[in-house]
């Protein structure tokens, strides 16, 4: 296996793609390689890592905008913007808990996988915070999409198309993202022992309230405590948060006793939710990430029955993390239950063999798949980039 390519400039990426096209070979695009276990298993391909495209190109705190190479680590970016009291609003998931691979998560990987954390319902997903991209498509052409301003409807939105495309349309070399002020303080309201249906009801009440709930999760018994925990987070300026928290606590008081966490206790807990720590172990289990309307979470979990070995809710019930046996039978059950719940599911972690045997990403409709193929063709007709990462033959 020839050694990995590590381009340091866009021109190097262009060269690598052209060479692969010419030779009829495939490229396996990675950032830090921290999410290597995500997607359909890698076909025989030469690894191309963007980790050397790592500098911060510009950072304009007064415009809350930052542009960096795709190989810049999330850690480096967070550190840089924290100095100006800013943060990535969408709380990108860190991969270590779930996949345990080495490697640092990068900006490119974050954009390519679009895995936003607990704040997603209020702050948007990763794709909502990407203002512009530079990439090299499968023809070896450098393409700029978007720009550095939020209000931008010039031409087709290829930025969105490349977010969450798992590197199948282009090698990301640079991304411009929208930042948000880092909340001055945070407080999490915790209710112990609520059953799942009541918890969803409480979280629905919270997310439908004007108090600015920016996180709503439910942890099953055994996830850090013997009892279930329903968590709701409120963030903001110190002078306004106490009042809001007080009135919010009164609003949900009928569901049970409310205790509070703040500061580091609160943020540590939400990081665990963000990174799916609570179902990462044991590591031989398959892990699914399921999106659906919160009111369907209950019936979805019921339909899974014993197939679910562990699960917890985020996004007020709109995101369900499930651990199952790493078997095709379990996968079928999950797919059936997700379809009934009108949601969609991604097999986030499983042994290569399972990921080769079942659909990893939610199977599109026939027309959806046709369009996906055509779009792939329009960027990468020779199938050079992460071929087969999302669907067979795409």
């Amino acid at each position, binding site marked *: 296996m020839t050694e990995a390519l590590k381009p340091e400039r866009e021109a190097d990426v262009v060269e690598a793609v052209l060479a692969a096209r010419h030779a009829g070979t495939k490229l396996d695009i990675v950032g830090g390689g921290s999410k290597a276990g995500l997607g359909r298993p890698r076909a025989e391909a030469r690894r191309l890592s963007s980790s050397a495209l790592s500098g911060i190109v510009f950072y304009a705190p*007064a*415009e809350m905008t930052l542009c960096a190479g795709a190989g810049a680590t999330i850690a480096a970016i967070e550190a840089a913007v924290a100095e100006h009291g800013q943060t990535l609003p969408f709380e990108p998931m860190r991969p270590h808990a779930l996949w345990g691979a080495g490697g640092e998560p990068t900006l490119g990987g974050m954009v390519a996988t679009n895995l936003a954390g607990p704040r*997603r319902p209020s702050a948007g997903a990763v794709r909502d915070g990407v203002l512009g991209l530079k990439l090299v498509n499968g023809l070896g052409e450098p393409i700029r999409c978007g*720009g550095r301003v939020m209000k931008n409807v*010039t031409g087709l939105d290829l930025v969105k198309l490349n977010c969450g495309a798992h590197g199948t349309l282009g090698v990301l070399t640079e991304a411009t993202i929208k930042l948000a002020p880092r909340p001055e303080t945070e407080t999490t309201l915790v209710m112990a022992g609520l059953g799942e249906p009541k918890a969803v009801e409480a979280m629905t009440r919270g997310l*439908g309230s004007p108090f600015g709930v920016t996180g709503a999760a439910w942890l099953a018994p055994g996830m850090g405590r013997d009892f279930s925990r329903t968590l709701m987070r409120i963030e903001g300026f110190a002078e306004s948060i106490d009042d809001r928290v007080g009135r919010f606590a009164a609003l949900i008081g009928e569901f049970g006793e409310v205790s509070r966490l703040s500061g580091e206790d609160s943020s540590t807990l939400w990081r665990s939710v963000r990174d799916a720590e609570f179902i990462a172990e044991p590591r031989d289990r398959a892990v699914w990430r399921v999106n659906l309307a919160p009111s369907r979470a209950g019936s979805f979990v019921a339909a899974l029955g014993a197939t679910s070995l562990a699960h917890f809710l985020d996004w007020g019930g709109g995101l369900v993390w499930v651990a199952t046996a790493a078997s095709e039978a379990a996968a079928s059950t999950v797919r059936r239950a997700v379809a009934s719940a009108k949601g969609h599911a991604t097999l986030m972690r499983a042994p290569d063999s399972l990921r080769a045997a079942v659909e990893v990403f939610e199977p599109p409709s026939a027309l959806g798949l046709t369009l996906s193929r055509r779009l792939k063709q*329009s960027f990468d007709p020779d199938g050079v980039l992460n071929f087969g990462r999302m669907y067979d033959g795409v």
Partner: protein
Amino acid sequence: MSHIAFPRLDETIIARRAAIVGRLAAILPPECLIADESGRRAFETDALTAYRRLPLAVVLPRSTEEVARVLRLCRDEMVNVVPRGAGTSLSGGAIPQEDAVVITLTKMSRILEVNLADRYARVEAGVTNLAISEAVGAEGFFYAPDPSSQLACTIGGNIGMNSGGAHCLKYGVTTNNLLGVRLVTLDGEILDIGGEAMDAPGYDLLGLVCGSEGQLGIVTEAIVRLIPLPEGARPVLFGFDTVEDASQCVAAIIGAGIVPVAMEYMDKLAIRICEDFAHAGYPLDVEAMLIIEVEGSDAEMGAMLARIGAIAKAHNVRTARESMSAMESAQIWKGRKSAFGATGRVADYICMDGTVPTGRLPEALQRTGEICASFGLRVANVFHAGDGNMHPLILYNINDEAERVKAEEAGAAVLEMCVELGGCLTGEHGVGVEKRELMPRQFSDVELKQQKRVRAAFDPDGRLNPAKVFPLGERAA
């Protein structure tokens, strides 16, 4: 003689007009098909009225199935199609041509489902933007993107253009508030993209369709996000003696980590125009005014306004007036949202729509004034200061051909300046026909070809809205 070209017409289609209309009449009831000239004329333009083209026929479908049947017929007949919402586009997005059929969704105006627990509404594409918020307001929710034309524009049109509005500073634009669409392709196939759940799976076709200006298919239904109404919202008017002070104040507020719900800028001429219509109590003697809205509880609003007030003071603010009642707030916003129409009392105008990084605002305003002055034209500035999305209203006399050409050239120069300053050609009105030939200023040839290949994945022959977005090149008449 018009300044913006249209594609060469397909004379064979025009020659077959009667047959095509006959085939449409066979599948549509009379109230859903307009073939007479007088009726078609009502659809020959939108809000970019300097350009008018009579369509072949106009179809007003009542259902997704009807849209699918019509599109299939158009594909079979090789007729171009121009989708239309309420026809309020400022960039000519709904302007047809003689070899095209207009398909307008204004008869599909039902709200299909409101789900407050899961916080979404499912609506037909002809529902107006404001109607969604009005339907859920009593329950404490609203639909956030609020283009100034929200009273009249349809959600289908909003999706086509990825419309914004004043409150997008905090809540995002249409694409950030959309959960799903039902799209009908030119082949008459129906594709449901997304749904009730967040983050549609696979390639972000939802993000691609939003802002695609009707070139990928026709959206007949949409699922949009509902947001809880804040406890209270209050706009404050800040008056400044210089444009620099006002625009630097904007940058300072953002830099301080404060994200107001909206930050709107109006210059002296715009203030006078809007005040004449809305009588909102705008200060008439300042050079620039900011409307800044905060939301939350009374205590929170007070705290945020205190911080904002301090920053404004540091930037030499001269007048500050806080709204004291819901009615006053409504008047303040009515004035701002009617700006374009109210300008019609004073003169004809073209409304530009470029974005610049907020840090470059003072420079952008300065140069906009210089550009318009160099063409001998007045300009009124009204815009979304918080995200740098400018709307210079270039005043001219539409009945004077020479002036119109000058106004368009001034507008083009302003947009090129926006790109030069690191911004873009259009922030929310879309490319339409208006900015089509400026696209090479922002994108390379390779990049435009990539976009066109994406478009061709949906519409290989380019029949949907053929005169829009991409430079005509050799297609020009």
